[in-house]
């Protein structure tokens, strides 16, 4: 029996000890009318060999793609040691470290992670992680609402330069708690949030969310935005790419007093793309907010002999103690991903992270240059950027991306669906993993697609029109 070690003899002995005749008797307290779930539509079991064959075929369907999509998930080189060590059973199959004495490995690692992440954000403290970047932003917003005693209205300013999925998640999670999310438009020339555009909201603001780099890959003037927030007695929430913080000024260093809370997606630090998860969200803050920080937190202490050890601390904030009065309903972190990230940051060190960020910068600019050399392909925002850029194509972005897909090129993320004003625009990314040969291939195929469909394009539009009239 798969994963069940019992022999017939074991079963007989155990039933005799219990004092029943058969296993089914153990379910005698369940009303008979409920028993007998039909699983007929579930396939028969597979052996590991059969499963391997099946999964190889499935994986192959999604393989061998040249990826230029970023938009919140980034392909970086992950050293072999990261997941070799992370996949050790002692990390992979351990439970939450509630029994501290039996969990010193995970607990010390989390303490080291908190140290690394809070330093990367230039803030005082970090929790042991949350689900992902978007839900971390939702928790940061809730944290700001609990903390800001100057604001009565629970109004959060949310620039449209924040990842659209993050904005969706924040709405879904905080929507029932009387918090108002006000979306702030971006400057169509620069792709950034201008301080001047915030002025009209300057009345009882709870928090301002500040992305860096923003969803368009553009660098925001975070100093000015942070100072503006603090002038309104609002909390400044940074939502950043952690890799970029090896190069760009970190949240705790923004403006005169630094951002108060920083959060974001930990995936760029050693976590594979893997269809979108599991990733992890990080959340750091100034020390005055620590008691409002949701999620697990590890502290260093001593044992009965005075020897250093680590425990989960400040548990009085959490749902298993506080129940309905907890700071959040969250009762997990993403321990395994944090394990990978901590090992990744140890292997990269400050120099490796900075080099990675610089290589991304260099590659994204090189890609921009080869693509914009194609007639009709244009840069949309006149602003400094890091590893992503918005380009306008001379033709329908959806059609172009589908055509590129035929060459196994993932040409970027189409922006027209979430930003109607950016029709025909694509968000393109190049990390340190790409080479000039990759850029040349992309440019060649893009040119081919554009010139081929120029002729076809007119015919296609005509056909669509006819289809619409027919009601197809």
């Amino acid at each position, binding site marked *: 029996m798969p994963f069940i070690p019992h022999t017939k003899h074991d079963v007989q002995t155990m039933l005799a000890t219990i004092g029943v005749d058969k296993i089914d008797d153990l379910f005698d307290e369940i009303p008979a009318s409920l028993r007998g779930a039909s699983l007929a539509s579930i396939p028969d079991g597979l052996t590991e060999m059969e499963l391997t064959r099946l999964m190889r075929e499935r994986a192959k369907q999604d393989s061998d793609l040249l990826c230029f999509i970023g938009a919140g998930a980034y392909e970086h080189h992950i050293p072999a040691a990261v997941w070799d060590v992370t996949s050790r059973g002692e990390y992979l*199959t351990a439970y939450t470290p509630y029994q501290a004495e039996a969990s010193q490995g995970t607990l010390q690692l989390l303490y080291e992670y908190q140290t690394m992440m809070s330093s990367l954000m230039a803030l005082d*403290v970090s929790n042991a992680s949350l689900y992902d970047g978007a839900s971390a932003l939702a928790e940061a917003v809730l944290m700001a609402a609990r903390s800001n005693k100057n604001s009565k209205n629970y109004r959060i300013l949310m620039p449209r330069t924040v990842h659209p999925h993050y904005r969706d998640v924040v709405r879904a999670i905080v929507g029932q708690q009387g918090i108002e999310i006000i979306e702030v438009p971006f400057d169509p020339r620069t792709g950034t949030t201008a301080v001047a555009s915030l002025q009209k909201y300057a009345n009882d603001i709870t928090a301002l969310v500040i992305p860096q780099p923003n969803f368009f890959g553009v660098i925001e003037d975070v100093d000015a935005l942070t100072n503006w927030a603090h002038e309104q007695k609002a909390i400044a929430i940074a939502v950043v790419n952690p890799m970029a913080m090896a190069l760009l000024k970190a949240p705790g260093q923004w403006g005169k007093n630094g951002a108060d809370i920083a959060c974001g997606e930990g995936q760029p630090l050693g976590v594979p793309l893997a269809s979108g998860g599991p990733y992890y969200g990080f959340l750091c803050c100034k020390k005055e907010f620590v008691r409002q920080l949701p999620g697990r937190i590890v502290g260093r202490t001593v044992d009965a002999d005075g020897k250093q050890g680590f425990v989960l*601390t400040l548990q009085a904030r959490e749902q298993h103690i506080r129940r309905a009065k907890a700071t959040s309903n969250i009762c997990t972190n993403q321990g395994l991903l944090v394990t990978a990230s901590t090992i990744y940051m140890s292997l990269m*060190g400050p120099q490796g992270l900075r080099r990675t960020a610089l290589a991304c910068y260099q590659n994204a600019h090189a890609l921009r240059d080869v693509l914009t050399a194609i007639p009709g392909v244009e840069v949309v925002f006149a602003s400094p950027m890091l590893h992503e850029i918005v380009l306008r194509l001379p033709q329908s972005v959806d059609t172009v991306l589908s055509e590129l897909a035929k060459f196994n090129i993932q040409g970027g993320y189409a922006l027209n669906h979430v930003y109607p004003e950016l029709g025909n625009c694509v968000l393109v990314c190049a990390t340190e993993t790409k080479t000039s040969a990759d850029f040349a291939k992309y440019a060649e195929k893009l040119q081919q697609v554009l010139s081929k469909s120029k002729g076809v394009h007119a015919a296609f539009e005509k056909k669509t029109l006819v289809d619409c009239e027919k009601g197809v």
Partner: protein
Amino acid sequence: MSMLIFEQSQQDRCAAAQQPRDVNVTLDIPAHLLRDDQPFLPQVSELQAVRHYTRLSRRNFSIDTQFYPLGSCTMKYNPRGVHRLAFLDGFLQHHPLSLDVHSQGFMSCAYELQEILKTVTGMKGVSLTPMAGAQGEFAGVAMIRAYHQARGDVARTEILVPDAAHGTNPASAVQCGYKVREIPTDADGNVDIDALRAALGPQTAGIMLTNPSTLGVFEEKIQDIAKMVHQAGGLLYYDGANLNAILGKVRPGDMGFDVMHINLHKTFATPHGGGGPGGGPVAVSERLVPFLPTPMVAKVGDAYRWLTEKDCPQTIGRLSTFMGNAGIVLRAYMYARLLGKDGMHRVAEFATLNANYLLARLKAAGFTPAYPKRRASHEFIITLKQEAKELHISALDVAKRLLDYDFHAPTMYFPLLVPECLLIEPTETESKEAVDAFADALIQVLQEAKTDPAILKNAPHNLPVRRLDEVKAARELDLVYKPVVE
């Protein structure tokens, strides 16, 4: 004592082969937006990092190394083949925003898991995106709220929760803007039906129940409860934490539940990872299908495509940046395929056999079950109230002493209403020998409590550290390492 990685760090040391080459580039970013200090990250060689984190791992208990009779947590074996196959290149390198045409492999697995979960729960719709049980609860209660609101039934402000429930239940209900009213438990561990009747009314939005309950017993009057709550206009939420107890035997949909979450990291054997990632898909009855969180996978002919907000205008929305913990979904799918329908029928049977056998052995040795008249489900509670009074030891002492015997401790002090309790869940993947060895150890600890209670009070003795000072940790917060400047 284990040194911190920072204490092994030296300026200018690095793992050179793992880092990208240095690039010479002129930045066009304004200087005031650039970082001018160096983040405090370790500077170590590859070997130093590998050795440090390998050595640290050895200071953990884990399923691969120890038996975890951890009630409510379902610490079953996590198959290695599943983990390995999730690391196939096509899955690992796959960008979440890939076009559908480049995602058919992953989407076929997700779609089939949706279908499997519908079948085992007896529900009509499934969304895989919630990233943990607590997020599944949030999604479930948010759907209950959306359902009432869509019908213009806006006076329902209250969610009922039994006092034995997981702490996440009330916390999730509050996060959805509800007031929480607790319902007491009767002497046999069932919901107090009279108290429930008194609490139900036009203000009732729904009830959150675990069945078998956290007390390790099946709620015998579940059909009556469902009828009463539905008659009052409320909906029933099933907390899937204990689904392992009934997998392949009874379906929450057949009991009358409207919405539930499934803990993939429990019932479907995905690794706990030292506290996450988990997976908390939600399953719903017909009337809640329009409100499921997005994205989901649909099958059109032979092809799979994503369902988004555009396809599901009444959805409660998006709960994760992309598609939840996709890699966990993939692992759960593979586990379900390895089990197949017969394997799934056996889960509850052997989990229940192991629990009742262990209970029988402990009863025979003089331990007190919290509900002696009741059958154990996949787990059970023993109370050490008597021992605490007579021998001046606590459930905590017993738990810590078990660590010395190389067993992870059972869940302690939960549910809160049973004094000095241990909640014990052996799972179906443990052999009779392992269960016997645990019973022997627990019996031995009880013996020690009688002859030498100090050995319990000072336990553990054989672990990397002795009992830790949690009060100091909370009072003198030390959450990040600060190097001593010489």
